[in-house]
């Protein structure tokens, strides 16, 4: 079991926003990858979904997402890479609040298909604040060397959004 975390790279979105956050040339020296983010998206609405792209490919991402907003809960099938989690704050959510989205990808250099899990929660001083848990699979045998975070609405992440990529392995 991997038990140490090393920060590989981090980013803070600047004033111009960012349509995606792309980590490239990810070293193959770890066992797992862990991405911790604080995200907000710029268009109207309370929350948006998050997309996760591996190696620049747009196919072969499937899974299941459970989500709720404090009043009701439901689930949906993950069928496209642009929708893997729900609960990213948008412009209409409480000012200066950011969602927390954690992504874990075990065995990212394996020649087997890659699984991932996501824990996402929105921050919003409202009766509804969305949260989701996702379990997914990227049906590709290539090692993960790059990954991108994108808002499902394909607009932009807001200034001060952050993403930290960690490598996880045994010490």
């Amino acid at each position: 079991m991997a038990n140490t975390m090393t920060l590989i790279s981090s980013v803070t979105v600047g004033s111009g926003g960012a349509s995606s956050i792309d980590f490239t040339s990810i070293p193959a020296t770890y066992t797992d990858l862990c991405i911790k983010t604080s995200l907000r998206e710029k268009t109207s609405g309370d929350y948006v979904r998050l997309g996760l792209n591996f190696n620049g490919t747009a196919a072969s991402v499937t899974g299941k997402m459970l989500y709720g907003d404090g009043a009701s809960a439901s689930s949906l099938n993950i069928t496209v890479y642009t929708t893997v989690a729900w609960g990213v704050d948008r412009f209409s959510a409480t000012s200066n609040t950011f969602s927390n989205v954690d992504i874990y990808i075990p065995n990212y250099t394996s020649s087997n298909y890659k699984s991932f899990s996501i824990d996402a929660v929105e921050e919003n001083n409202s009766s509804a604040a969305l949260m989701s848990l996702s379990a997914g699979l990227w049906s590709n045998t290539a090692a993960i060397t790059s990954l991108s975070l994108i808002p499902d609405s394909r607009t932009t992440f807001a200034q001060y959004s952050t993403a930290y990529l960690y490598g996880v392995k045994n010490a």
Partner: protein
Amino acid sequence: MPNPTRIEINCETGVESIIELTDAEVAQMEADAQAAEARKAEEDVAAQALADLKTSARAKLVAGTPLTEEEAATLVI
């Protein structure tokens, strides 16, 4: 008006680049956004239909009237 930008971080070098999207990438982004909206609308309709079925199933259970196959399916795990 300039196109939106993306942030790329090279994990080997640590170099962070802000890259303006090409027109083709912007067009793809807009197409993806429309697809996302359409997908969301379909899912909302399906979620509402399921909620309506559950409400109907509960009412019939309380009233002691027969459930439809679809209504029963919402209650059996």
